[in-house]
């Protein structure tokens, strides 16, 4: 499973600004539709919609998300960076495990980590703590045990 390490610069201001926008979008979705801004839930409902109405708002939300890089490209002249330091096999295995895990865990970073924690949900605290530890251990094993 090939990996390489790309050094990334520390970007506190861009990351803070991005985080605030993520938060604003979450608050606006709750105010407008009464829904949690969870990528997992939005995607699941888009793939397996309960009605046409239900599918339409998810499609609009996902279209907004996916056009963000294009809008940023037009506004700033450069596409935001997506640097992938892992092999295709790791993307495939990782992606499959993410899908499996978020289904049974009932959410991901946006749903549990932001919205659930903001609602002070004990379930989301447990989920977030669990996946943060699991991710940290996995990265350590991949980079310093297997690849070390």
């Amino acid at each position, binding site marked *: 499973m090939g990996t390489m390490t790309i050094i990334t610069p520390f970007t506190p201001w861009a990351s803070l600004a*991005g985080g605030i926008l993520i938060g604003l979008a979450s608050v606006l979705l709750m105010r407008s539709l009464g829904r949690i801004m969870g990528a997992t839930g939005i995607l699941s409902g888009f793939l397996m919609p309960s009605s046409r109405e239900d599918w339409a708002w998810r499609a609009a939300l996902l279209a907004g998300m996916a056009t*963000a890089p294009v809008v940023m490209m037009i506004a700033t002249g450069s596409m935001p960076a997506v640097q992938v330091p892992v092999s295709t096999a790791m993307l495939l295995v990782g992606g499959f495990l993410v899908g499996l*895990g978020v289904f049974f865990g*009932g959410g991901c970073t946006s749903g549990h980590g932001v919205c659930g*924690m903001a609602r002070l949900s004990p379930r989301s605290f*447990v989920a977030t703590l669990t996946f943060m530890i699991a991710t940290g251990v996995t990265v350590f094993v991949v980079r310093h045990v297997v690849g070390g």
Partner: protein
Amino acid sequence: MSGLIRLITLYAIGLLFGIGIMLSGMANPAKVLNFFDVAGTWDPSLIFVMGGALITTLIGYRFVLPRSESAATPFFDTRFHLPTNRSIDAKLVGGSAVFGVGWGLAGFCPGGALPALGTGVPAVYIFTAALIAGLLVARFLAHRPFMRQPSGRAA
């Protein structure tokens, strides 16, 4: 007409979320994996993403979430759709742990990958296809008799 306004509003909210994700670095696996690599090429930026998003949502939800039943309704719906599942069980912990392993391998989480689809980078499509496969397999497994227990979705 109101249906169109609703869809335009939701498109704008998705765009805002997507710009936030792209700006923050959550859609950049190199940055995400470096955040978790404390023992190596550590990049603490993601603390600011989580912090900024969480504090903004925490404050915003205080104004937006209903204090009591039937206090207020969302603009485009007759009620709030809040998760009702409160159980902290093996499914929650096991699922979250499996998610973490996948996130640690690939460097993408669902909220990072969906906006990144717009960059056209092939790796995002490979990850998203595998993510969808995982979701579908999980759904199939969940409908088998041995897995059938009351459960709810948090997000």
